[in-house]
């Protein structure tokens, strides 16, 4: 290593002392660390680590851009997690070399492509584990600045054992591995369906409390739905399907199919008395297959 300091010679004692001000490592790793510190300082100075810059990830992303290498287990793991966890999503894979001298430029290009993709909700950039030198790509200043310039929130997922990449600090969030990133970004299907089911059941109960004759029927159905909820073995999606179907069948508006209609004023109030419809008043008539605009001729 190099040491920068001031020497002092003690002639009488025959000693030389060196007061070191700075020590610089000379090995390759030391150089890389120095470079990383320089980049870190530059990015920090530009405010790229600022917590206020961090954007939130959408709770139910629909389209995810994935910037990683086509070789390697990382991509395969990400796809596996996605298929297991949340099917209602499309992955846009933007391939890029993730190690070697060409990698930073390749990643910057790929991130540029992500910015040109319309309707992408978020981006994941990452790779699986590797040597310190290999992972150094994710400390590259150009790559970090390209991550910061993304139009959509970005999750950095570099397979470190312990270290942190600079892309982790610039991105809106980071995960220790690419598959962990997907676990974090994708909602759990089972949990989401359960949530929707409980809302469906409360919907039935909520209306049931208010509609005299319908109340008993609705409440019974609500209870049936709650029972169905405990059927953990059934495909959650099939369960939800069943719910939505039941609720639709429960709607008081179903009676419209038998020839009844509902008249509503423009603000949604249901018409019950002639006084609500002075001549000339506009209203809508809800019949079984839609709304009809209407106007009162009398009284």
């Amino acid at each position, binding site marked *: 290593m190099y040491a920068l300091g001031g020497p002092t010679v003690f002639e009488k004692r025959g000693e030389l002392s060196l007061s070191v001000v700075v020590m610089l490592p000379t090995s390759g790793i030391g150089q890389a660390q120095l470079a990383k510190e320089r980049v870190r300082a530059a990015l920090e100075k530009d405010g790229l680590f600022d917590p206020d810059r961090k954007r939130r990830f959408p*709770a139910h992303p629909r389209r995810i851009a994935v910037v990683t290498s086509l070789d390697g287990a990382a991509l395969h793991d990400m796809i596996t997690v996605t298929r297991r966890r949340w099917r*209602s999503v*499309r992955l846009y894979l933007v391939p890029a070399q993730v190690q070697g001298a060409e990698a930073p430029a390749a990643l910057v290009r790929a991130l540029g*492509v992500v910015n040109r993709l319309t309707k992408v909700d978020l981006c994941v950039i990452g790779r699986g584990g590797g040597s310190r030198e290999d992972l150094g790509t994710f400390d590259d200043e150009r790559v970090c600045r390209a991550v910061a310039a993304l139009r959509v929130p970005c999750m950095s997922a570099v397979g470190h054992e312990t270290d942190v990449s600079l892309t982790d600090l610039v991105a809106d969030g980071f995960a220790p591995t690419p598959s962990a990133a997907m676990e974090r970004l994708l909602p759990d299907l089972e949990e*989401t369906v359960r949530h929707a089911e409980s809302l469906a059941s409360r919907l039935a*109960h*909520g*209306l049931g409390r208010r509609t005299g004759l319908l109340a008993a029927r609705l409440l019974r159905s609500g209870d049936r739905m709650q029972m169905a909820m405990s059927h953990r073995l059934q495909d959650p999606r099939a369960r939800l*399907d069943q719910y939505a179907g039941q609720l639709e069948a429960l709607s008081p508006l179903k009676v419209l199919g038998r020839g009844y209609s509902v008249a509503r004023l423009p603000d949604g109030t249901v018409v019950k008395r002639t006084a609500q419809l002075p001549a000339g008043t506009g209203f809508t008539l809800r019949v079984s297959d839609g709304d009809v605009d209407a106007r009162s001729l009398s009284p």
Partner: protein
Amino acid sequence: MPDPTSDSLSADLRRLEEIVRGLEAEDTDLDRALLLFEEGVARLRSARERLTEAEARVQKVLEDAAGQLRVTDFEA
């Protein structure tokens, strides 16, 4: 028709929460309850459509020599 590209599922679930709270409130009258119920069923239907989608799709995006983006299906 909800925008399929935005986070419509979150919006549907959030709105369903509001609707259910509205229906559960003591002071909501029947007219309003009916409207809320109707909207709730529509929101639930839209959430169900999203949750019952068949399979996650993986597509590869490449930039060709002319700078055009090409999107093709990717088989892992």
